[in-house]
């Protein structure tokens, strides 16, 4: 009878592989959305105040529809949010927030070099992202999402992160090479 149970549970499991609801990435999506409110981009002043605030996802998209759903109908001042899945490194230029997927773990340095000094908030949950020169790293700690922020990296790119966000984060530096 163990087999009956097993078979029932497993077949049911396979039949039900659809409904998109999230956990870890739901929380991360809401963080990404919140970051827009706690970050000041000293971007070119002439920018259209209604231009969309662009969140780019580089690499395999772990969010599915969640991120789109999170920002749907939301605005920052007059700016609506827009999510863009990026295919190439050169597409990052227009982003305000760049989420780098774990799939890009091995070429993070290359990506950050391409971003360098552009006012783009770089975010990832890849290994040692903040220490490797990224701005905000999601860290899974005891089933909760923690933030690790490299303030120097943000400052170098003229991205100011609000003290409200810094207060809840762990501050790290890029180790000297």
């Amino acid at each position, binding site marked *: 009878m163990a087999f009956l149970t097993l078979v029932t549970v497993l077949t049911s499991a396979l039949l039900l592989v659809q409904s998109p609801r999230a956990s870890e990435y739901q929380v991360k999506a809401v963080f990404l959305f919140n970051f827009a409110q706690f970050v000041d981009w000293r971007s070119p002043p002439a920018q259209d105040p209604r231009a969309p605030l662009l969140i780019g996802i580089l690499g395999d998209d772990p969010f599915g529809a969640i991120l789109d759903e999170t920002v749907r109908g939301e605005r920052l001042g007059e700016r609506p949010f827009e999510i863009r899945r990026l295919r190439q490194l050169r597409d990052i230029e227009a982003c305000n927030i760049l989420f780098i997927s774990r799939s890009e773990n091995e070429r993070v340095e290359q990506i950050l070099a391409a971003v360098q000094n552009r006012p783009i908030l770089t975010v990832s949950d890849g290994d040692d992202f903040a220490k490797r020169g990224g701005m905000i790293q999601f860290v899974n700690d005891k*089933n909760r999402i923690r933030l690790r922020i490299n303030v120097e990296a943000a400052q170098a790119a003229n991205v100011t992160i609000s003290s409200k966000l810094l207060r809840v984060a762990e501050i790290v530096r890029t180790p000297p090479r």
Partner: protein
Amino acid sequence: MTSPRSLFLILATTVVWALPARAQQRDSVEALKRLSLDQLMNVEVMSVALRPQRLFETPSAIQVITQDDIRRSGATSLPEALRLASNLQVAQVDARQWAISARGFNSTTANKLLVLIDGRTVYTPLFSGVFWDVQDVLLSDVDRIEVISGPGATLWGANAVNGVINVITKDAKETGGLQVTGGGGNELRGLGSARYGGGLGAHAKYRIYGKAFSRDPTLRPNGQDAPDGWHMGQGGFRLDWDASASNRLSLLGDWYDGRIAQANPGHIGVSGGNLTAKWAHPLSAKSDLAVQAYYDRTHRDIPGTFGEDLDIYDVDVQQRAAVHPRHDVVWGVGYRLINDRVVNTDSLAFLPPHVARQWFTAFAQDEIALASDRLHVTLGTKIEHNDYTGFEIQPSGRVNWTFSPSRTLWAAVSRAVRTPSRIDRELFVPATPSYFLAGGPDFRSENELAYELGYRHQQGALVLALASFYNRYHGLRSLEQVNPPNPTPIVIANGQHGESYGAEATASYRITDDWQVRAGYTELRVHIWPNPGSTDRSRGTAESHTPDRQLSLRSSLRLGTQWSLDGGFRYLSEIANQQLPAYAELDARVGWQPVAALEVSLAGRNLLHAHHAEFGTPAARRGIQRGVYGMAQWHF
């Protein structure tokens, strides 16, 4: 038998799946968006793991061995890596056998510790313990090893009397590319492994691996090689598929085959394989469901002693739900079937040779947040049914008080049982009457009442933890003389009781970003007495072989970007009831990483003495020799 429990299991999971999905997601996103940053950081994310991360938060004596710790220790096997947890008693018996336990009761057939590899219980129903020679993983694929000393029976069930070891390997997403490792030396004669990780479409990643090693024999008391050299090969895979944002499926499997020399004619042959399927399914931001099923097969042939073929089938379902802002509930059900076939010899027999046994488990636990999240009370119980003793109840109550952001005080009271195994009831020596030793037909569960008190402190780079305990045991296994004062025949019974107490202290200090030092110190006393009327005269010498104290010191230093230097010192006091002297040993490793893709290392194990013994009576003990090996690892 389609028990009510099986039906309940099927029904419960079906009902949970039927809940309306989409509306819930929208609601939960909106709810999350209303949270402050602080609140958002306190939202628990449901992990893919069936059980592990949960335990990290429970107030208990937990130590975590990370991948970096394992790599930099130079460990080449799971037991060697477990030496890094100072709350375990780890003793190498001979080239392949280890005695590993927590809080005493150590022996080669230690039975009060539960060991899991990726959620799969590695366990033999022969003695409720672990054959360490066949528990292997590719160590570079291990994410972490959680080691809990103290009872974990409420969440984990029988055997988790004095501790739980939880080996967790990395998600396949984190092990991409080709990695080749090779090396060898005098004791570890040779070790080679290869692992390749790749993708199947955008959302599924896999890895496959193969490894093989050969180990040198240990020394007999007379200084000659003991006949225990061995070699083994193992291969396996892991597939992780993010089928959608809320459905993660994993499939894991391993297969191994090995040959071990022995004193009797012939070789010990070991082989086996296992297959595990896991499904993690968040139901909302506040609830998730995890289902796991596995099949595990082991074969062991010890010519002249016995042979065994064992099949284990296991299914577990677990749900977590934050049912109320103050209540975080975990509940689950499980079923296990074992089919054990022993080939008896003249020297010993398990009777009947072939048994099928089943276990049903159900547990529930509520973590209640009191006093603005600083005080947590966790109440729970496990109810288990086994074929030997029927129902067993294992409740626990725990309190966790975080009285400042960096200081936590915790306390716990738990009941745990060690249910009978085949050795207790069904072992007969020799195989036919008249028996020298006979299993006890009435052997019941051994039970424990455990009281624990612990403290954790973090001050910047300094982390301190102290766990103390007092345990009472009833119905401990005894060897009753049937016709005293004649020493034999002996029948196994529950004629002993006992107590154990002690403390485990750990400190870690990060002196600079590149230099970390750690210390662990454990004091432990185990006392065992015969019950009134018992004819057992062993005073527990058959049940517990444990040093009173052990000390470990570790230093991990990085020198520039290319070099690393690690050292680990350990001291263990004598094991009095084996007349085994105290010993101190040192392991060291130098690593050189000239480019990101290559690491070369030289490691020394047990450097202080040409050989030393860690376990066993004078005639039986083996000399563990100094070992040196070199290793190279390429990552393409």
